[in-house]
């Protein structure tokens, strides 16, 4: 349905991928770790290997949590845009099917946050 607003309304998509200077937005949320109140937003080149996302980008924020160093990445469970998936660590974000404004969620079995309280 068309927008019902005063005249002069223009057609504009403010967050199209071209506006991010070669990057795309990727959101990453760590389930059961609510010390991070929300998923994190990152502008990343689509060619970035998934491994770099994990060990550099995600680490830059999530490493402040004592659980991060304990993660067994072999056992991590991933959800991409609502579907479970198994990332190829050496492949790029794009090759892994991660698009502009994709949401990646991950669970780390055995790690339930501060005192097991999902924090």
């Amino acid at each position, binding site marked *: 349905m068309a927008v019902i607003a005063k005249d002069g309304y223009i057609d504009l998509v403010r967050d199209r991928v071209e506006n991010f200077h070669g990057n795309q*937005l990727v959101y990453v949320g760590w389930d059961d770790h609510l010390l991070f109140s929300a998923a994190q937003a990152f502008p990343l080149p689509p060619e970035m290997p998934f491994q770099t996302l994990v060990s550099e980008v995600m680490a830059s924020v999530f490493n402040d949590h004592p659980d991060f160093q304990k993660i067994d990445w072999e056992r991590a469970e991933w959800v991409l845009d609502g579907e479970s998936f198994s990332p190829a660590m050496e492949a790029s974000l794009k090759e892994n099917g991660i698009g502009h404004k994709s949401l990646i969620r991950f669970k780390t079995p055995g790690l339930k946050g501060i005192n097991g309280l999902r924090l």
Partner: protein
Amino acid sequence: MPAKKLNLRKRYGLLTRGMGWETTHQKMDDVFPYDSFEGIKITDWDKWEDPFRLTMDAYWKFQAEKEKKLYAVIDSFAQNNGQTNLADASYLSAIKLFITGVTPIEYAAHRGFAHLGRHFRGDGARIACQMQAIDELRHQQTQVHTISHYNKHFNGLHDPFHQFDRVWYLSVPKSFSEDALSSGPFEFITSISFAFEYVLTNLLFVPFMSGAAYNGDMATVTFGFSAQSDESRHMTLGLEIIKFMLEQHEDNLPIVQRWMDKHFWRAYRLLALVAAMQDYMLTNSPMSWKEAWDVYFVENGGALFEDLSRYGLKMPKYHELATAEADHISHQIWSVFCSLGNATGFHTFLPTEEKMAWLSEKYPDTFDQYYRPRFEYWHQQQKDGTFEFQKGLPQLCQVCQIPMVFTEVQTDPMQISYRVTEHGGDKYHFCSDGCKDIFEHEPEKYVQAWLPVHQIYQGNCGGPTLPEVLEWYKFTPEDIGNYIGSQDHARWQEWTGEDKEVKQA
């Protein structure tokens, strides 16, 4: 011989209805181009009733008297160093959020009502909107004048309007206002006068004005009282316009219901910031967010919608979720502010032992189980000197623009609530079904949203680093971060010779 003095009813008639006319040189539709495209059908504008029957001359007289009193109090507050009577200087974080987040909404409301005061076809409704336009401008002005006294002594109060247009959390009230302002006049007035001012205004007024009274802030109490009689007129206008639209034509009902659903949810989401302020930023809280919600929305709002059910209007969609969330949102919002306090224009501070005992009592089903542990963990980190603000930027909701902190309170309160939709090949993320519904009805409007996190990444906010962004916001290093150790705190200690910790009762 005619009477020398007209009675009130006659004067009202002459000064409102008597000021308008049917145009002949130009078509009425050209003179009033904005009041029909929304689909609202008005058959008889003369059925509009203004319960206050206020005319401009009476209005000027009332307002002038209120101004005189207000400015006398502001002067004496300044002369007596009223700022030293605050309960604690940490309380001023609430005032900083008010002047940057609420006062600019008053100005936006002024702009909106000025537009309606020109563009409603009915002269009675036009006059009522003109007066409200002046009221809103006065509120903005008196708030700036009153709070400017604190600006002489404390940080973070120096440039609210600049910040309103830029700062990440202020995009929440800004987008709320601009959503209404860019709508047609009937949707605007449903949003501001009914959903916000009639249904939810007490939830803003109580924490700020009673909150001010509870914390020795007589300046804020005074402008609150000065605004209160205006607010009661505004609320009456809100109810009147809803009844008027519903009585004029049966086709109006589904439109009004959809606006009600939308703007209830938008206003409610905006008030999440107020919930955090009420429960955490006030040194002494007169009542909890949940108590206020139960009284002002569940009880009073329930009675209101029962009354309106004779027009076929139903309770706003997702009101049950809002009531379930009343146990959670203040804690969730204050958590995100505390973890990003290096980028807020007010000081953050963790709840004290006394405050947490109060929160446990007020939130017996949720605080100890879900929220106390994170504050205690951060307390321990602060004690050990290991506390750090979070380094990343949060994902935001496309509609309310709040960081995606809300959780599935009805099924799993520790699971973030994620909603998504696609439009034009792009994904859009939401905190709730309420925000997702709003998007899906008018996607072309919300794909334009100026989301602060995305704007930073597009390079539109002063630079890629946090200090550059904060400078672009006009936040100085003294404005941000923990209250303990701040200039505000140091100054307060100089005056009081005590209060080494945050004081909370």
